[in-house]
């Protein structure tokens, strides 16, 4: 997979992306652990890399952006739930429930967009994704936590609109999923450590100051607790920069 070609594609669409991508490429993408790189796969996200996503902030584009992420999640859990000998029997109920929600989110967003809905991309996954449960869990966590950040990043584009409520109602369900998957992996349900993997998914989660209030100083709580207490958003460009090498 040629990451640099993808960066060039994005840059061609969004000239301002260079600096942002440089950040991710230096700090996150190229700094990935070996495990994360082996689970990332050359999935086709080219359909996502288009002008609308990179530049426009119309409601329709926001919803199509969301739909694309939901397509991915829905596809992922459908394949995971259908795979033999992947999800242990004890965890089946959890992923059946998550998959059910993603399918419902796709239907909901497609219904809202009508004819304007983007088509479902073709997703491809690394060979071991649906045979190795730890790999499956890691990617599930990455998708859920990225999903939470992606919706959060779009909220401002829907300010005051009824559709904001719907987006928030999806957003919190993704957060429930993220919490559960993280806990299945033995992690906290909340994003905590500054070195969580995949690194790109958690870039920028380390804030201890909100709205100029230094919350460690204010509350006397640890930086970990303060970081956990606030989930940070991601821009669409950042989501794409994260998603592309992982998908």
């Amino acid at each position: 997979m040629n990451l640099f070609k993808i960066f060039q594609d994005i840059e061609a669409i969004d000239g301002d992306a260079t600096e942002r991508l440089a950040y991710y490429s230096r700090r996150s993408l190229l700094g990935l652990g070996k495990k994360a790189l082996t689970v990332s796969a050359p999935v086709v996200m080219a359909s996502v890399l288009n002008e609308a996503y990179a530049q426009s902030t119309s409601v329709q584009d926001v919803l199509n952006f969301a739909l694309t992420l939901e397509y991915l999640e829905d596809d992922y859990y459908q394949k995971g739930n259908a795979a033999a000998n992947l999800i242990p029997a004890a965890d089946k109920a959890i992923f059946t429930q998550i998959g059910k929600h993603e399918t419902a989110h796709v239907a909901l967003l497609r219904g809202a967009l009508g004819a304007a809905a983007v088509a479902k991309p073709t997703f491809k996954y690394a060979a071991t994704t649906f045979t190795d449960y730890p790999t499956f869990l890691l990617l599930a966590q990455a998708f859920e936590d990225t999903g939470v950040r992606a919706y959060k990043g779009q909220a401002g584009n829907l300010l005051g609109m009824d559709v904001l409520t719907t987006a928030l109602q999806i957003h919190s369900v993704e957060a429930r999923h993220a919490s559960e998957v993280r806990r299945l992996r033995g992690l906290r349900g909340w994003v905590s450590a500054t070195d969580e993997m995949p690194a790109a998914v958690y870039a920028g989660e380390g804030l201890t100051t909100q709205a100029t209030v230094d919350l460690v100083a204010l509350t006397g709580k640890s930086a970990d607790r303060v970081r956990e207490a606030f989930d940070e958003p991601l821009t669409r460009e950042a989501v794409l920069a994260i998603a592309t090498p992982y998908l």
Partner: protein
Amino acid sequence: MSGMRIYNSGRCLRQKRTGSFTTIMFSKNGMENTTKDRPVQSADRRLFLRYAGIATGAILIQSCVDKDSMTTPLPIPGATTVDLGTGDPGILNYAYALEQLEAAFYTQVIATPYTGMTDAEKTLLTEIRDHEIIHRDFFKAALGTAAIAGLEVNFSAINFSDRASVLGAAKTFEDLGVAAYNGAGKLIKDVNYLALAGKIVSVEARHAAAIRSLLSPKTASFAGDDVVAVATGLDPAMTPLSVLTAAQPFVKTTITAANLPK
């Protein structure tokens, strides 16, 4: 005991009336010192005093009418009714009220652990307590002089020695918090406030899932059909009025949301 105050050299910032008993939080070095892990439940008055004493190095003296309080524009009178106010500050006060409730609840949960609380559960619940305290104190700081007074809670319906009672209440509070933020989002006018609410609501949803998972591990309950709509996969979004109606049994202070945006 009426008229007694907890004294420290800082300014008297807030007064909270619990029956005939009045407690007052004080500033310390110009900053209000109400942020440590203090139960505010009147039923747990002694514990509160102990915490307050630890936190402030307080000593007790008689009479609130002394030189200090005469020369200080505060205290704010103890509130039995609070009006959340209007506009975005009103919405932030609404969030502040809910975070006060949650922080007080988890503070009590950790102060008096239920029978059989495992180490893992205590760790998880302590972290949630700290998140809620951080949320509460953040809103108070962000609101500044527009902040409502401290609420007086009523947890008499919760049996803090019983795991099912405590976790059941936690589930109620977390699910309610999620639905409250989801419903309040579109009432917010300032995009920066919306962003802040968005940063918090997903943490509340993470809490909700974790609490539900403690109650029903390895099931669909973390995002169960009882809360997430099956057909749409959506969490609830509730109006402030509905949320406050659900929350009011746990709050002695009457909360008025009549002036909030609709």
